[in-house]
């Protein structure tokens, strides 16, 4: 961690350090296990899975399941693999993440640096929205998407994810900006910068860590969403998770577990990548204020 010194004042004996390492490694094993099972079995031929031990390494290594999941597995009536849906997910996730992050950042900026009478109530209202069970919004949301003529389209999905992402992004940015020195905003006001100029020139360049948090959070939530994707996307625009579900949960027939696992890892790929690449910003961003919320 570069932000705060990790020069912890706490000292501990060698013996207890051994114990600490042991516990940490055991937990690492626990966390890795399900993914490990998936990975190992995605590289086995199907006969080895049905006949063998789930944790055993493949006797014959094969990438056939991966190729199949990507481009030839049956999703619906056509053997397209997951490939086209991958693109759908990106088309959905990227604009929704960007929009909700931008709006969340502006909201956080207003709620901390331009407070007005009732602004805390507005914040409370936004925050509570994080906690509604999504199942209840399906029917009324469908009506509204229908009225807006974007039912079953990617923009419709973007709207849905955008709406239900605002609460969290606002929370993150508000807590981050609360710790941002108000004097900088005042200085910029005196320098003649307007509302948006202050935001763009002063706050935004310092918002790296919290943008990372917001991005990671939104991206994983949106990418992993199944309920909205299944309900509000029609056939061709279905996101990855819906396609994966169709692959994995098909009602009858032979279950190609190795292909399912390969597909599942693929579907998880982008979020995993985001966590691994940007994960350290996540802790840093949480540190920079969002823990307070």
């Amino acid at each position, binding site marked *: 961690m570069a932000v705060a010194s990790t020069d912890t004042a706490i000292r501990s004996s060698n013996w207890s350090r051994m114990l600490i390492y042991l516990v940490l490694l055991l937990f690492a094993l626990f966390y890795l296990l399900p993914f490990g099972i998936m990975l190992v079995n995605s590289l086995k031929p199907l006969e080895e899975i049905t006949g063998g031990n789930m944790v055993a390494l493949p006797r014959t290594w094969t990438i056939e399941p991966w190729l199949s999941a990507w481009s030839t597995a049956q999703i*619906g009536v056509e053997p397209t693999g997951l490939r086209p849906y991958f693109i759908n997910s990106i088309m959905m996730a990227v604009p929704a993440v960007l929009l909700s992050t931008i709006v969340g950042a502006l909201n956080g900026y207003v709620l901390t640096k331009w407070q007005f009478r009732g602004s805390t109530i507005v914040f409370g209202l936004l925050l509570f929205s994080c906690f509604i069970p999504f199942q209840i919004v399906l029917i009324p949301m469908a009506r509204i998407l229908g009225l807006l003529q974007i039912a079953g389209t990617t*923009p419709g999905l973007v709207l849905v994810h955008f709406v239900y992402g605002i609460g969290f992004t606002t929370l993150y940015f508000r807590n981050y900006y609360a710790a941002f020195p108000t004097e900088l905003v005042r200085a910029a006001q005196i320098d003649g910068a307007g509302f948006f100029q202050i935001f763009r020139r002063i706050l935004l360049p310092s918002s790296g860590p919290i943008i990372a948090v917001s991005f990671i959070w939104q991206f994983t939530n949106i990418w992993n969403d199944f309920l909205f994707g299944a309900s509000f996307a029609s056939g061709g625009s279905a996101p990855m998770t819906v396609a994966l579900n169709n692959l994995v949960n098909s*009602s009858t027939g032979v279950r190609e577990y190795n292909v399912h696992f390969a597909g599942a890892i693929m579907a998880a790929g982008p979020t995993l990548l985001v966590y691994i690449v940007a994960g350290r910003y996540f802790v840093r961003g949480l540190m920079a204020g969002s823990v307070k919320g």
Partner: protein
Amino acid sequence: MTMMKKLKMTAAVLALSTTSVVAQEVEVLHWWTSGGEAAALNVLRENLAEGGVGWTDMPVAGGGGSDAMTILRARVSAGDPPTAVQMLGFSIQDWAAEGSLANLNALAEEQNWDEVVPEALQRFSTYEGDWVAAPVNVHSVNWVWANTALMEELGLEQPESWEEFVAAMEAAQDAGYTALAHGGQAWQEATVFDSMVMGVGGPEFYQDSMIDLDPDALGSDMMVEAFERMDTLRGFVDDNFSGRDWNLASSMVINGESLFQIMGDWAKGEFVNAGLTAGDEFQCFRVPGTEGTVMFNSDQFAMFEVSDDSAQEAQLAMASAVMSPDFQVAFNMVKGSVPARTDIPSDDFDACGQLGMAQLAEASANGTLFGSMAHGHANNPSVQNAMYDVITAHFNGEFDAETAAEELVLAVELAQ
């Protein structure tokens, strides 16, 4: 705000591309996503493509179609229903009651559907006398699937009565096999229960309790006995059954770990895929006690009301294609079920298929063809699921047979 502008433009472009590029198109919501089924459905897609009708696929797997039904609600609420939706039993009636379904009478008359589709099926395909759905197949659920090699090894004949059935399973258990392969999911337990109710009480009792929901029948001694039979079966199931998918249970029979499985005819596909031959390496027979009756469910394509003419034409083209003998044969050979029309020769089907077709025709003629409770063809989903709750709770040991019958009465009352 250029972002919003771009978004709107994308929306407009997308809207254009989905509606008006192909002149005639059907959008089909279904949950047939496994290899065989999807391939069978692809036959339909190609048939339509030859006639210039495009196909927008909208598969939603999972939960035996319950996820698809959720999505259908969203689509209808949005005022944008799919053209055709795979549907089971009472759902069709419910949607018809909402006024969401199209009228297919003209086509039905032209193609004489009234004559070729069994009356018990028409009960679901029509609403107040109007055709609203095109039936694809008839599954019957009261089948036992048996491993021939194991039966020979244990010296068993095909059981003719409940007692013989139990005795056969005892023999298997004593020999160290899992007598009954079963997956612990509510619908699988309900599937078995259908046969128990029919086996104990016969057609009349099934009608009274499962279809007419007569509280006296639901709480009767016969119902208690049906639950007791479930207890007996529970004794033949291994400890690891909970949550197991039905096809894994089928594999147990295929692999010779298990003697029997009680399951609908879609199980046949598993046996065939494993390279086994019907009537030879595996046996199919009616659950003892239910011979002469058929409890069925039928996949149908419910046709939703669509506004513009070209969509209507496409829809009719699809309904017609679904009902065509070619498709009915091609699809049902893959699916393990039998065609929804009784005027199709059974030559192409295997032993079990031929048996199923013959029994269907017979039951239809004798009035012993009943909708399966477990598959939503006896009652609406709320009652069906309320029954699931009790049946599965009982099977998992929460109630004894008498309590289960009492709970069944209460659950059905609350669900109505």
